[in-house]
């Protein structure tokens, strides 16, 4: 047997153990990425093999938590993919404005930048006070950070550029205060965002959403788990509601794709048909 095959077996056992003991199910994550991440975690953990790590992993929650942090990659940014946010501003918001109040779900929100970007955008488009956002993630450590709304000041230049490209109407500096090497987002932005833990592999839907965003999360899932998530979003969305995926994710090969029309062609913004 090749050493990789042994490792594949070890990884399968490890994920099985994690699921049974801690209830977190990573068994349907795409192999290539999760293997990379697990190997990265192993290299830093001090254990030689996954079998060796297993015993402590299943007994000590802190070891599991370090694994969880290693498995979930939380890279994100304000106004990531500016052309996408521009399309939301120009093509989605006009529909949202026809409702007195809208509900929005950010699934896999990481440290919250996507939700904060959306809050800025909606406020600028005159929807302040007319929305509630649910921003969820599997990783509670990042949710904690999301709630704080503090970012490295070094990122602000890039975020400002993104904001401008996305069609921002004000000055990005209006939305944060600089303190030493940190930038603190204006607390007003948080007012209508609820950060909460939610696991797309095991938890249920959020009712009556007008807009669901799940960007750069399902790329890490195997097809079956993707289907599960899409069913979840579909049952959460009102007819006429919008589903936004990452720029490289599409409904093209998906069963439920026919119930959606693509709004902004390459930007993966879909609208659920009525009836």
């Amino acid at each position, binding site marked *: 047997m*090749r050493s990789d095959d042994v490792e594949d077996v070890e990884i399968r056992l490890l994920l099985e153990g994690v699921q049974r003991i801690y209830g977190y199910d990573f068994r349907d994550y*795409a192999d*290539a*990425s999760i*293997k*990379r*991440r697990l190997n990265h975690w192993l290299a830093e953990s001090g254990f030689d093999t996954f079998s060796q790590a297993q015993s402590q992993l299943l007994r000590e929650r802190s070891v599991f938590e370090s694994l969880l942090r290693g498995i979930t990659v939380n890279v994100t940014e304000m106004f990531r993919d500016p052309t996408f946010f521009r399309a939301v501003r120009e093509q989605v918001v006009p529909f949202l404005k026809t409702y007195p109040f809208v509900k929005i779900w950010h699934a896999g929100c990481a440290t919250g930048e996507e939700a904060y970007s959306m809050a800025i955008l909606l406020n600028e488009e005159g929807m302040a006070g007319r929305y509630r956002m649910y921003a969820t993630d599997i990783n509670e450590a990042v949710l904690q950070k999301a709630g704080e709304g503090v970012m490295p000041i070094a990122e602000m230049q890039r975020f400002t550029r993104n904001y401008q490209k996305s069609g921002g109407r004000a000055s990005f500096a209006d939305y944060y205060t600089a303190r030493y090497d940190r930038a603190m987002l204006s607390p007003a932005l948080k007012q209508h965002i609820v950060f909460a833990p939610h696991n797309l592999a095991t938890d249920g839907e959020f009712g009556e959403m007008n807009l669901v965003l799940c960007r750069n999360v399902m*790329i890490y899932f195997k097809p079956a788990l993707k289907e599960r998530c899409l069913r979840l979003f579909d049952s959460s969305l009102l007819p006429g509601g919008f589903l936004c995926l990452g720029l*490289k994710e599409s409904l093209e090969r998906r069963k439920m794709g026919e119930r959606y029309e693509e709004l902004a062609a390459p930007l993966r913004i879909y609208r659920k048909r009525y009836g």
Partner: protein
Amino acid sequence: MVKSFQAVVVGVSTGGVHALQKLLGGLPAAFPLPILIVQHIGADADGGLAKLLDERCALRVKEADEQDPILPGTAYLAPPNYHLLVEREGFLSLSADPYVSFARPSVDVLFESAAAVFGPGLIGVVLTGANFDGSQGLKTIKKKGGVAIVQDPADAEAPQMPRAAIAATGVDYVVALDGIATLLQKLAARRNTIPHDEKGRDD
């Protein structure tokens, strides 16, 4: 034990547009293997390179979408800002993980994930580039019994990447860009002799 090749992976950076035109342009539409490519590219690029190459080459060239099946006679380019990986089930996946070897897409990520799936059935090609991405990946390909081809540094627009690859591992072929398409066709028509430690693996 003998087995045919299943895929080609290519890593290229500075000078890549020219190098890829030359390499892919030299292959027939019926080239029997899929080709997976990481060309370092700015995060804002728009898929224009795949279109350009597709127009100029007999091979089909496309920017990789997640879950694309890996088909012969097709070259897949990693999209800007995503790593490109190979899944065991025979399709491609993408990841938004942090930069690896200062790059996203990273050649190392593609090479390592492809090596894990194709083992000795993989041919790795490192072309011109002004960094050292790809050298670790090529080492992994060799370790798993695959074949390593590197563009002759003297022939490369930027010699660093080929040089780093040659320094990292035992390379099977060091050739000028002009000769790589022909070499790939020869290899594709042939079978890889699987090294000793791979014996007994039945797939």
